[in-house]
């Protein structure tokens, strides 16, 4: 039987790549420490497959077809196409069609209606945490895109339920497989809005406190109320909520948080301690 061996979350600020030289030395040091530790923890659980949850940034989808949830079932995925990601070593990324299809079937049986893609491009959201965390070579990846980009968004509650479903799918997978989950995105940021560049550290700290508290209902209520009132990039915290559902709503451990104005993003990194067995 498959086993869930790790759950992780990471920010993916593009300026970590294309604006790194402009980052203050203290911030650079702290971000490097957090990303290195994230990568170390991920490698340490020796995943056979990584299920990665990230938003799309107008790479795979447009407003003529914008799914709330999409599962990548392909044998392979394409690496990031952003010109400033050209140094990223991931060009052809292995998939895991059997686990991806099993997750799809479990989702459908659980009254979710996800979209399916046989060839996704994994943009910077998927690749920055792994690349900068030193995860190379990559394990096969089952990519899951949650629409955090363009309203209407899936509700925060639905994202928590999605995570619970994902954990159940892993438990029911019949083959021996070590499965890790990584949520990519957040914390507070604002892109292309009048608040662009503003980071809401108080909100980020409260989010972290709510994840540490664990209770899914309180977390959902808090985020459902606050996400519509702050910068658009914070919508990506839905991915962290899904990861929290995967982990059974407990065990959140902050690896690091940095309010980085040079990156426009409140950068957070975390893992969840899972029950033994």
């Amino acid at each position, binding site marked *: 039987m498959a086993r869930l061996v790790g759950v992780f979350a990471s920010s993916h600020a593009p300026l970590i790549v294309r604006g790194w030289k402009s980052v203050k030395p203290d911030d650079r040091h702290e971000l490097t420490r957090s990303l290195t530790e994230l990568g170390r923890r991920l490698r340490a659980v020796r995943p056979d497959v990584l299920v990665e949850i990230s938003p799309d*940034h*107008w*790479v795979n989808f*447009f*407003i*003529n077809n914008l799914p709330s949830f999409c599962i990548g079932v392909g044998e392979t995925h394409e690496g990031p196409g952003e*010109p400033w990601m050209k140094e990223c070593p991931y060009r052809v990324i292995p998939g895991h069609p059997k686990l991806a299809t099993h997750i799809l079937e479990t989702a459908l049986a659980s009254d979710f209606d996800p979209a399916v893609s046989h060839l996704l491009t994994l943009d910077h959201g998927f690749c920055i945490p792994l690349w900068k965390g030193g995860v190379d070579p990559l394990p096969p990846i089952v990519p899951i895109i949650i629409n955090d*980009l*363009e*309203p*209407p*968004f*899936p*509700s*925060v509650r639905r994202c928590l339920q999605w995570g619970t479903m994902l954990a159940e799918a892993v438990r029911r997978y019949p083959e021996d497989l070590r499965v890790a989950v990584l949520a990519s995105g957040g914390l507070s940021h*604002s*892109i*292309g*809005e*009048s*608040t*662009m*560049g503003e980071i809401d550290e108080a909100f980020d700290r409260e989010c972290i406190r709510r994840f540490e508290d664990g209770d899914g209902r309180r977390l959902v209520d808090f985020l*459902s109320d606050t*996400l*519509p*009132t702050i910068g*658009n990039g914070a*919508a990506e915290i*839905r991915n962290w909520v899904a990861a929290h559902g995967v982990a059974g709503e407990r065990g959140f451990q902050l690896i690091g948080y940095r309010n980085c104005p040079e990156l426009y993003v409140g950068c957070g990194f975390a893992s969840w301690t899972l029950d033994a067995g």
Partner: protein
Amino acid sequence: MRDYWLSKLFFDLHSSPSLGEAYRADRRKVLDRYPLSLDVRAAVERDDVAALAPRVNPYLLRFYFVVAGMSEAEFLARVKAVAPPAAGSRRG
């Protein structure tokens, strides 16, 4: 409400480096391929961030002005003058 063809223009420019080059070389020639309303086209031609912002996704707005060659400082100054989005528009 999103303007479909404005969004499509921005999406295409974001997706295709060669189209971006063509756009920077001759903006009007590329704009002629998109059935933009007269007021939207005029807003694009005068780089009117405030007029365009309510009609497209904010990420696409930002990506567009990178492709169009506006400096980050200039874009930040102009976008900060835009009225903030209504909170309800982000509700999931």
